[in-house]
């Protein structure tokens, strides 16, 4: 019996050994790349993926900028805009509210790549500590915090543009996770994002040893700014004010009026909190932003509305952000991205050197903190109007060159509209205008009519009536999901109801 058992077992053991070694022989590792098996073993790898998430911000910049500006009020298409290429047609369709699910600006794939890289770092990065002894816990926490910051920033943009989107916090390193994810409401996404941000804000470094990194990578200050901004968006005004106040303990300051242009050239100024870094001269990283501002006769230039806002100032006053300073009075190009000094008229202006087509894209600078705080104060109570405008008078407007305080509006709605106008003068071309309009359109007394006043002038006259009706539907304020997403998700992703009519046919 024993012998029989041996006779039976031995071939089985031999066979399994044979198959086992065959299996090893059949594992052929690819050349020149790393696989799941060998990756996530050094801190450099963790940081490398983290950097990819920053690079994705660059690739998302066009989306982020256009989402904020095309339907906004500060810029319009210049003579350089020929409305010929598919890209340009998509842009003008967004501006004229002819938004189809095939429009490239409803494609959010680049942002989700950035989210995916961040998710990889958050989930898989800590594992590298088992292999790399030099990878310390504080360093890991700092990387985690940066990844959380980036993911939050991406989602904040997605929610503002689409409202409800798939909320993914896991990396797809294997196909075991279902990649068909339904939408989550924008409100609950931001709620969760705020929890994460608050948790990690203390783990992030306040600064880096290398100068550009302190402005170009997430810091605890960038966390505060983002928390304040999101809080303002979701209507948590106390938190917004709280985090604005935290930033006052940093070393940020608005410069002098004469130094205003330094915010853009050379960038990474004293008031900068977080900006996307480019370097043309040494590293050949150009920013398309400059091309947009100056290519041909300018693709995006200052709108009449913004020009009028600047023209409306008292003759005895001055605004460095306005014509002949922040933009050129002749061709209405955004000088902030083209020039090096404020006065454009001197010797035909000081242009950026030809090897510095690399203005940074600024996400947060100190100036915005005052606006957030002022708006939150007003939203909390009409009684705070004077306090809020005093804050702006002493900071933003003083730096811009105004000598007289602004006239105090009498009610909350007027105050909010005034804030938005002031914000437009400060942040035109920085991708914020439409989000401001959308945010305040929810305020009583401002309402959708304010949003319509801003949008309908962009629409050809024969279509204004239809679009006027459309805009009553809040769903129309958000972009449709791209049709390829709807297709690929096979019924799991539901199109924004306003755009249903375009999606049914596939």
């Amino acid at each position, binding site marked *: 019996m024993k012998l029989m058992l041996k006779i039976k077992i031995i071939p089985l053991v031999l066979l399994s050994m044979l198959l086992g070694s065959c299996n090893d022989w*059949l594992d052929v590792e690819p050349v020149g790349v790393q*696989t799941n098996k060998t*990756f996530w073993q050094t801190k450099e790898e963790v940081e490398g993926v983290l950097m990819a998430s920053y690079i994705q911000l660059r690739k998302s910049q066009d989306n982020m900028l256009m989402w904020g500006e095309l339907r906004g009020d500060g810029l319009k298409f210049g003579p350089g805009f020929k409305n010929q290429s598919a890209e340009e047609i998509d842009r003008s369709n967004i501006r004229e509210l002819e938004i189809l699910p095939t429009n490239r600006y409803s494609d959010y794939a680049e942002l989700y*790549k950035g989210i995916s890289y961040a998710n990889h770092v958050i989930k898989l990065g800590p594992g590298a500590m088992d292999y790399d002894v030099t990878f310390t816990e504080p360093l890991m926490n700092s990387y985690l915090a940066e990844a959380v910051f980036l993911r939050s920033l991406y989602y904040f943009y997605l929610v503002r543009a689409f409202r409800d989107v798939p909320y993914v916090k896991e990396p797809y390193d294997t196909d075991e996770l279902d990649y068909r*994810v339904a939408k989550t409401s924008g409100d609950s996404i931001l709620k969760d994002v705020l929890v994460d941000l608050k948790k990690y804000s203390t783990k992030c470094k306040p600064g880096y040893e290398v100068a550009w990194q302190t402005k170009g990578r997430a810091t605890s200050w960038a966390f505060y700014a983002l928390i304040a901004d999101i809080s303002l968006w979701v209507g948590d005004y106390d938190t917004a004010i709280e985090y604005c106040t935290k930033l006052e303990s940093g070393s940020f300051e608005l410069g002098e009026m004469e130094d205003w242009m330094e915010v853009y050239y050379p960038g990474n100024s004293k008031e900068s909190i977080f900006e996307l870094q480019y370097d043309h001269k040494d590293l050949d990283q150009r920013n398309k932003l400059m091309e947009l501002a100056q290519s041909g006769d300018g693709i995006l230039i200052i709108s009449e509305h913004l020009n009028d806002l600047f023209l409306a100032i008292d003759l005895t006053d001055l605004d460095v952000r306005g014509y002949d300073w922040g933009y050129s009075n002749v061709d209405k190009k955004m000088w902030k991205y083209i020039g090096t000094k404020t006065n454009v008229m001197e010797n035909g202006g000081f242009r950026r050197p030809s090897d510095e087509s690399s203005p940074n894209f600024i996400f947060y600078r100190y100036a915005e903190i005052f606006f957030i705080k002022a708006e939150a104060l007003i939203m909390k109570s009409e009684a705070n109007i004077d306090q809020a405008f005093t804050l702006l008078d002493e900071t933003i407007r003083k730096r811009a060159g105004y000598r007289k305080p602004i006239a105090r509006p009498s009610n909350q709605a007027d105050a909010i509209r005034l804030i938005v106008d002031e914000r437009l003068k400060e942040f035109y071309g920085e991708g914020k205008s439409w989000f401001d309009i959308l945010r305040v359109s929810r305020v009583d007394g401002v309402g959708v009519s304010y949003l319509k006043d801003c949008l309908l002038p962009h629409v050809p006259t024969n279509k204004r009536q239809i679009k006027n009706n459309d805009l009553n539907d809040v769903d129309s304020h958000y972009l449709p999901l791209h049709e390829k997403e709807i297709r690929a998700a096979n019924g799991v992703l539901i199109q924004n109801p306003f755009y249903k009519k375009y999606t049914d046919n596939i």
Partner: protein
Amino acid sequence: MKIIKILLLLSCLLPIALFGQVQKVVSGVVSDETGTLPGASVYLQSVEDKRAWDGIATNINGEYLLSIKDSKEYEIVFSFIGYRTQTILYKGQKEINVTLVSDSQIEDIVILGTQRDGMGMDTKLTSSAIEKISLDGLKDMAVTSVEGMVQGKLANVDIVAGSGAPGSKMSIRIRGTASLTGDNDPLIVIDGVPQSVAIEDGFNFATANEDDFGTLLNMSPTDIESITVLKDAAATAMWGEKASNGVLVVTKKKGAKGAPTFQIKQVVKTGIEPPRVPMLNGQEYVTLMQDAIWNSVRDDQFSSISQLSQYKDILYDPAYVYFDEFNQDVDWLDYIRRTPLSSETNFSMNGGGEKVTYHFSANYLNEVGTTVGEDYSRINAYMNLGYRFSDKFNISSSFSYSDGDRNGSVQNARSLAQNKMPNMTPYILDEYGNMTEEYFVQPVSTIQGPGNDKTNYYPRNHPIAMAELSSSRYAERNSSMNFNFTYRPILGLNINGTAALTLKNTLKKGYLPSAATGASWDHKNYNKSEEHKGYSMDLYTSLNASYYRKVSRHSFTVSVKGEVSQASNASQWVTTSGNNGLELSDPTVGGVIRDMGGSLGESRSIGVVGSVNLNFYDEKYNLEVTARTGGSSNSGRNSRWGINPVFGLNYNMQNENFLKDVEWLDRLIVRGSWGYTPKGASGNNTYGGIYSALNEQYYDMGALIPQSIQLNNVDFEKIYQTNASIELGVLDNKLTFSATYYIKTTKDLLQKDMSIPSSSGFSSIAWINDGSIQNKGWEAYITGNNLLGSRGKDWNLGFNVNVSRNKNIVLDLPTNLEYQKAEVNNGKYANKIVEGRPLGAFYGFDYVGVYQNHDETVATDINGNVIKDINGDNVITTINGHMQRPGDAKYRDLNYDGIIDQYDIIYLGNSMPILNGGASISVSWKSLTFTSALHFRIGQSVINQARYNTESMSGQSNQSTAVLSRWRYEGDPTDMPRALWGTNFNSLGSNRFVEKASFVKVKDLTLAYRLPSTFVKKLAMKDIRLVLTCYNPFTMTNYTGQDPEVSLPNGFNNLAMDNSLTPNPRTFAGSVTISF
């Protein structure tokens, strides 16, 4: 020194010492009818294992002397090349004299009945679907490829030629399309070695396309003995998952025992193209263009009136600087067509003695195309040596080399010529208006000025310069070495081993001179050159053991086979521009590098097959069970080892007692089999999650990205095949009939690079399993051999008819809607896969003619009432927002909404034939033989894209004379829409361009004459044959294009389109074959 001397002495003494051991000697004389035979071989062989011992050759007088050791039983073998071998048992004779009989009186040995499959099984006992064809009867056909020879000869092996250009690959489908991965080609096994078909990873399809690869293409058909097709699950059990689309087993020629035979064959051939589509002449073209522009100017209320005078090249303006140049009447195609003269030379040598057999052949082919610039040349060398150590052990080894070289132009010169404006001169005119030899470069400002830069297509490209100067070359060099041994240690046990090494080098080189494109020196296409090099090495070994035993009336065979293969490949490519000419287009010489890259890959696989074949009651009932397991480095560990079982039953009814007396019946076999094949994903390491460096930095910090998702969930594609057949043989098997029914279902279809929601952070996933399709059908053939003839009769007749039907149905739709795209645009067809419909189906609009007047453009509802808008006005039918006007194409508005859109798309047919097959006949009378072959495909549709190109009238290309009947005024009795410049929807993808392409082609007419042997003998030759043959002489079809034989699309979502490539010419050839 001393030592050496001693050694020398010893070595001299050694033979003497050995001689001392000799105890017996045998001697004698070898002769034939005429006298003694010097040089005949005489050797000792042990009776037990037929192993050869001592041997000697007869001296000048035919005498021999052999010494014999006592210890064994011996026989003495006498042989001489050209004579029958004699074996005589040695019983101690002192003298043996033999007379050898000349070999020429010996009939060829014909092995009947016992064909054996790859596992050493008699085909009479197997349950699988096998069909075999010998290439010997096809050797006179005027084709250069194996595919061309067997086209229409094998049931349900659908072979279609896409182009008549020399060296074009033909597509092969065995029992239809069963996969969505685009990998539907059968596996090719040459002399027991499966050929790798994998295209290396990261292959750059911008510089090469799949059509360039063909294992069969580079082989000379003259080296092939026979081809066996395995169609069902037994194929995959035998050869693994790569065989799931069927297998073509190619057996090459081997040396045969006999006097050396030398054969020289010389073929000369030429070809004529089928009649072509008549095109507009210069004046008609100019009128058409003016008409088109005028219509568009009138449509937009004269806001673009300047267009009327914009193009001076189509106006009568003698002041125009190129007035003469644009008032010509040129038939562009005439300049790039030619009557080709091609040749093929073949030399072979075959023979062998008792121990060694050999076959050697060399082949040189030079085929010239009917289009200028297209040609194909091929060199083949093949050598096979067999050595028989004994009856128990023998080895064979072969070496083959092939070098195929195909030339063409970078862009299809034919379509350029067809599109080119016929009123323009091809060459610069001198002062008297006569053509010079310098190409005329079309000015940018003309109507066929710069085209769309993105598509890289330039209407300005010069067709003649393209054909004559541009070069697109594809060369493939193959060398393979093959070693094989057979060992039969005991009766019934057969051990067989194979080792093979195949090396392949490929080179693809393209050169696009600026003379052909008119590109300026700073353009990215100025003197552009592309080069792609690939190297691969495949190593394959297998070991096979089978044991046969008979127990009273029953018997069984057990076999086991193990195989290991390993393949590695590398490639590199570079694209440059600004080169100084074709010869100087190497990137090292100069020029700007536009793109470059390379790839490396390796794959390995292991397979083990076991099979048991049980035969009961004198092989009346047979049961066959085969199982295979195999693993490949292409699959992840989760789905690497699959079991591939096949069960088969075989009932030899002719062995039944009640049929024993039926004399005319030789064979009546009923077979049935079922098998399951798990098929894994293809490609190197596609399952692994990969991280790679990003070619970009964040400021100065490098970045790494996860590039692909690791596939843990991907499973095998599951293929289930059921096969039932009946085979009948009568009249000494001279007439055989076979019919087969099969069902092949593929579940959990593997789909490559599937789009997934971008919320995952990835745009696609390498593989997923989804959907299922089914192929079912039948195939039947009847073959007659040697029908009229018997020895001594003058007449002989042989024929073969085969018919097959394959029906493809999508059972389950893949859950991804990526395949449901509809585009409303000229020449675009909806991309759809619909449950219950076949793959490759066409969907588009229903074209119903032309709107004759304004009233007809008004949209009506289902009751025929006019649809009104909010203001009470009539709604005009629109397409993509454009209002339709009289003269525009009218499509059926299926949902009566006044808008022609994706809701109005209908099913238009599909590219799968209802029936396909072929027939061949061979009649001989004395030494004259006539053979003919047919090939037919019935019931399939194709998109006549060539007709779309020549009848759509929407661009500036020249059109066919069919457009002369275009609509111009109300009441014109025509269904050809008006000419319209700019945006129009007059040629949407619709049934207007989808045509039935059923055809019956006479593929071959051959007359062969063998010179009388008495005459040949006088010339000291063995045989002389003269052959006249015509390939592709007639086609019967209703198809309006040049050739209804349109290539099958590569991917499953590509549609069968006739793009007017070089049509298959009628080829006439003559050849002489001399054997001596």
